[in-house]
């Protein structure tokens, strides 16, 4: 029993650590999508953020500056998407895809000299006193700063979106831009702002990956986690708390997968051995996304909780007047 408790503690603790980069991406995408802009470039922005974090912290010897630079890089990339989808009214799906491919290509090209270069990382920083609480302490309070910042960001994002005046404007712009415009909310400015905020959070997510969870740069190191974040936003019905739950769940899944690999497979039947091979275990998080999206879709149909009504639609006044 005690062994099992230790195992669960380890899995949950590691799940929170692994889920943090996904969580940043998901929170960023929630902000962006709540304003009515669909940005599928999360993966690309996370990759650029991860590389920028490494390069900047190597140059300045400070992981903090690295994380800030990653945010700036993510924000800058998302500005391209904002310009194409808001000002030029281009197709948001295609622009987001382009952003992801561009981010992957650019980071792989520029990151070539940094592959496997030892890089600084955020040190583990247990919270005094709280870390001593049995079970809770090891799970929640023995991490690095990026995890704690994410903890604080969840309620902050929820509060901002649901309980403040700018948050009300944000939701209005995402649900009914014409009405928000009539009430004097600057639709274009709001959408630009939250697209860039979302991009910055995705960049930070990349830095949380390259400066904390798996320190160092490898080509395509996000391995689809940005896309998992985009999927989580749908699963979470655009709510930060549910996104956090989903992100930590995925972190835990990817960690369990790692642990199960270590189990002895000697006495097991052949198909179990195949299922427990590293390749099949690595499929699990991606398969889990599909399964969860299927359940989320059933629920969404039943409860009619849906995307922001104007998600993905460009806004112009002429069309609104017509």
């Amino acid at each position, binding site marked *: 029993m005690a062994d099992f408790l230790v195992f669960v503690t380890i899995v949950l603790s590691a799940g929170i650590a692994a889920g943090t980069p996904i969580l940043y991406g998901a929170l960023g995408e929630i902000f962006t999508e709540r304003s009515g802009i669909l940005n*599928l470039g999360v993966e690309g922005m996370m990759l650029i953020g991860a590389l920028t974090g490494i390069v900047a912290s190597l140059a300045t010897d400070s992981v903090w500056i690295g994380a800030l630079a990653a945010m700036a890089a993510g924000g800058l990339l998302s500005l*391209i998407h904002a*310009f*194409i989808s808001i*000002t*030029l*009214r*281009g*197709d948001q*799906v*295609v*622009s987001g*895809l*382009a*952003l992801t*491919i*561009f981010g*992957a*290509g*650019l980071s*792989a*090209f*520029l990151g*070539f*000299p940094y592959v496997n270069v030892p890089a600084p990382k955020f040190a583990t920083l247990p919270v005094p006193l709280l870390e001593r609480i049995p079970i809770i302490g090891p799970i929640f309070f023995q991490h690095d700063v990026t995890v704690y910042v994410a903890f604080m960001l969840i309620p902050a994002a929820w509060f901002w979106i649901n309980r403040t005046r700018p948050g009300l404007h944000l939701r209005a712009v995402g649900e009914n831009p014409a009405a928000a415009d009539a009430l004097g909310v*600057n639709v*274009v*400015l709001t959408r*630009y702002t939250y697209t860039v905020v979302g991009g910055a959070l995705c960049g930070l997510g990349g830095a949380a990956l390259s400066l904390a969870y798996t320190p160092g740069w490898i*080509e395509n190191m996000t*391995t*689809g986690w940005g*896309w*998992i974040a*985009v*999927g989580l936003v*749908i699963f979470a019905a655009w709510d930060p708390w549910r996104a956090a739950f989903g992100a930590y769940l995925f972190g835990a899944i990817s960690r369990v997968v790692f642990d199960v690999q270590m189990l002895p497979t000697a006495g097991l039947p052949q198909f179990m051995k*195949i299922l427990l*091979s590293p*390749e*099949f275990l*690595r*499929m699990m998080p*991606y*398969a889990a*996304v*599909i399964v969860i*999206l*299927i359940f989320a*879709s*059933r629920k*969404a*149909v039943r409860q009619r909780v849906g995307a922001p009504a104007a998600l993905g639609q460009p806004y*112009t*006044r*002429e069309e609104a*007047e017509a």
Partner: protein
Amino acid sequence: MESSRGRALPRFRGFSLRLEPRLDVPRWLPYAVPAASLIVALILGMIPMMMQGINPLTGYRDMFLVAFGSAYGISETIMKAIPLMLAGLGVALAFRMLVWNIGAEGQLYMGAFGACLVAYTWPDSPAWVLLPCMMAAGFVGGALWGAIPGALKAYLGVSEIITSLMLNYIAIQWISYLVIGPWQDPTSLGFPRTTRLSDSATLPTITELWYLPMVIFLAIGAVVVLFWIARRLDDNRERLKLAIGFVLLAVLSLGGIHFLNGRRVHLGFVLSVAAAAVFSVLLSRTRWGYEVRVIGENARAAEYAGMSLKRNIILVMMISGGMAGLAGMSEIAGNLHLIKRAFSPGYGYTAIIVAWLAKLNPWGVILVSLLLGGLYRGSDAIPGSPKALGMMLQALIFFVLIGGEVLVRYRVRWDRGT
């Protein structure tokens, strides 16, 4: 009206940017924009190249020479372009219906799996039986992999974007499992690859032996074309188009055989061009192609007109996936002759760029694939990070083109003052 348009976009100090819908688009503009995008993207691409310490001008020159500067270079460029053509045709079809199949990469791997399953099961059967079976199996492998996101989209409303992408990672892991597990070559000393395909399971290369069948094919074709020109077509313009097309086909095919004789380019190239012809006829001349286009333009109207969205979404995803599967089959049977872990350098993702750059036009896919294949091949010329340079330039072209397309639809005005 005038004042409301002016306010539609943010106003920066002193001037504002306005987009006015174009009433009529100049004929040359839709062609000039992709060409200009290409140039702008190549200029922008100089920045990261310089950051990496590469002289962009000599870099581009070297890339061009490696990709297009010699007969060998061109044939290698075509080798890279073949999977892009096949997968790009499929992606373009899906995008026409606004079905966002971004799982071509995974479908390509599953097509390779299907084809090899056949090839390793009956390695000794004659090529004329085995190769068509491998093509069918490759198509089915990709089609089934594409049917999953298609069915989830059609029946449950699950976003096909995310599911098709997740399936990419699963397919790549599946192939990784095979090449270090049950399919690993026992003589490979632990290297993650399968045994070589048997001779009858490899696609033939284009050689001088093809002259005779090609001439016979062209002769039969000439009779058919003459019949159409004389009897079936009543418009002189259509007649001229058909005649020019046929002469072009004859010159290009015979010249192509002469040029590619003894090089590595294989049957997959012919297959891709034929597939482009089939898709082009399918889209513009058949009832189903009309349905696909109408659904893409206005799904609701199409449904009122009695077209089945669900059936078409699944069908399009299956054909799209099948084409990507065929790309995987041709890459394995024509180029690599065995499966390695992660054997595709992102062909499935580049296929998305190919489809969009080609404006979802089948013949455009062929041309753009040759160009982007040249970027893959050309980036081998630059020391450093070869694969990534091509990918980055491709993505840059993609980005600039999306922005540039606005110029086709809108007239951009800069207003000074208020």
